[in-house]
């Protein structure tokens, strides 16, 4: 199916009375950053281009939320313009927070009430490196062949090809049809989509031409004493920006905010990069040195999460590179380890 951009705007204008709609907008600062914001009919949104500054995780796993009682709201939400690196991030979070015997109460509410409309990337940032993780700048299915989006949009001239990925997607299509008419996809549309995809794929590859795409992650734990860790961590100030901005990080701390009347627990983001993260009451810590703390994020993303979920905890979004005040580039860290 194909929808024109003007019809899609009409759909958002109508649906926003029933759904909370979030779409990427350009920031007001003088750069090209995109951020998810509540839909504003008077402002021009950008569904394609590249990833937003914050991962879509921040709409599902807030910096601080009450988990007892759960504070998430079950208003229906549409989140549009989600990129593949964020879809893959949500897949990791789903495994971590929903698929065990213990279901994270807020994440479950936010996830159940949300409809995800992803969009192919049409441009890249200098930090984008999904290709190094064998991912694409447009949706790839999960390991079971399941789509990770409800609907996906592929920009073709002034319209979008819509692909349905789930039951929720079918529901959305019905709602779109209530306000506008959808055309069939032509061969010409498909051709343009494939050409666009090939072009953006090449662009990400070109940006990352200094890095080997044939990366091995066992070397991270195999070379856990390597000088690479000590060298790169010299610049690290342990601010935790890299983990706070990551689409798959979910480490938490709990605070007890109970009153005489009720028990109340509040969960907040934590970061393995912060001092004292793994320290126990007696003062013992499994990671005594700063370089061990620095290394932990790499082990977690590429080794531990792979073992835990059979998925890498890095989706190649490159946000940690953009956010690092010390300009540490994790691609360079991984590259250096390949050469140890």
């Amino acid at each position, binding site marked *: 199916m194909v929808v024109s951009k003007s019809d899609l705007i009409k759909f958002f204008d109508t649906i926003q009375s029933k759904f909370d709609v979030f779409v990427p907008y350009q920031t007001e600062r003088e750069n090209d950053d995109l951020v998810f914001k509540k839909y504003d009919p008077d402002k021009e949104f950008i569904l394609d281009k590249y990833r937003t500054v914050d991962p879509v995780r921040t709409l599902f796993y807030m910096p601080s939320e009450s*988990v*007892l*009682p*759960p504070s998430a709201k079950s208003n229906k939400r549409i989140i549009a313009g989600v990129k593949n690196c964020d879809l893959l991030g949500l897949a990791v979070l789903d495994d*971590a*927070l929903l698929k*065990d*015997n*213990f*279901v*994270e*109460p807020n994440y*479950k509410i936010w996830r159940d009430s949300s409809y995800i409309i992803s969009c192919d990337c049409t441009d890249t940032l200098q930090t984008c490196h999904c290709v190094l993780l064998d991912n694409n700048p447009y949706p790839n299915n999960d390991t079971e062949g399941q789509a990770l989006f409800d609907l996906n949009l592929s920009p073709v001239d002034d319209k979008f090809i819509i692909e349905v990925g789930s039951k929720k997607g079918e529901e959305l299509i019905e709602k779109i049809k209530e306000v506008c008419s959808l055309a069939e996809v032509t061969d010409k549309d498909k051709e343009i989509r494939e050409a666009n995809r090939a072009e953006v794929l090449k662009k990400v590859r070109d940006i990352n031409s200094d890095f080997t795409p044939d990366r091995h992650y066992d070397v991270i*734990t195999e070379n*856990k004493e390597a000088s690479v860790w000590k060298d790169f961590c010299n610049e690290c100030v342990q601010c935790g920006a890299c983990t706070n901005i990551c689409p798959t990080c*979910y*480490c*938490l*701390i*709990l*605070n*007890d*905010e*109970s*009153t*005489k009347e009720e*028990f109340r*627990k509040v969960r907040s983001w*934590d970061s*393995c990069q912060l001092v004292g*993260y*793994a*320290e*126990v*009451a*007696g003062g*013992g*810590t*499994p*990671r*005594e040195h700063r370089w061990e703390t620095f290394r932990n994020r790499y*082990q*977690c993303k590429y*080794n*531990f999460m792979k*073992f*835990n979920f059979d998925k890498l905890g890095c989706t190649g979004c490159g946000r940690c590179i953009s956010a690092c005040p010390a300009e540490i580039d994790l691609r360079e860290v991984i590259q250096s380890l390949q050469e140890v």
Partner: protein
Amino acid sequence: MPDKNPYEVLKADVLEVIEESPTIKSFYLKPEKPFEFATGQFIELSLPGIGEAPFTPSSSHYETEKMWVTIMNAGFVTNEIHKVKKGDVMGIRGPYGKGYPLDKFRGKDVLLLGGGVGLAPLRCLLQTMIHDVKDYKSITVCFGARTPADMIYKDQIDEWKAVEGIHHLCTVDKCPDGVDWNGKTGVVTVLLDDINIDPKDAIAIVCGPPIMMKFGTFSLLDKGLKPENIYLSMEKKMYCGFGQCRHCVMGKYYACKDGPVFTYEQIKDEEKIWD
């Protein structure tokens, strides 16, 4: 039916507080409804408005109406918990983690090697095993503490010794002059010289401070116990208790949901298990 909130807390009345040693107290709790758990599983015990921390109950899983929890004053939360008095209200949630695989212990020589507050989970295990004492070939209890004053559960030693099939040995690192002490002197591993078990088939459960677990494990290996028959309780920083806060991650394992009890065989190649 919405999923059960894993953070759900049960109110627990404090029925009694016992001072076990200068730094360790036991709290007798009555949860608002019976609380089922498997021996070796742990709970998150909270002090409203202050915080919570993970503890393994020190009473048997056959007792579900009330439970004992033994706690050392070691940090911010436990310091506040030590101020709790009879009649106060606390919160418990859980149980979390895997229990001791009692099925694998039956019919075998079972050795409990504990030090300091590490005796707490071992007391839970011992009380559970006493309930079915004939199921085990033998039960040997080797408990250590720094000084006689630091030895917890002293008043129960005679009770345990009276149970047929149980051998109880204890030691202190040092005994100050003029203090009565019937046990041995020396670190807990000295007790291993005096025990008579078949090492090839024996099971050892070790719990105590990291340094004691490390040397306890090495002594047991020297004695001929198999790595897969040595069970260790791992103490790691934890918040959630069920594999979501990631603080307790030990390589590919979570100390909370894959443990807190691991065999030495499972974790011997993981990094810094003794820290």
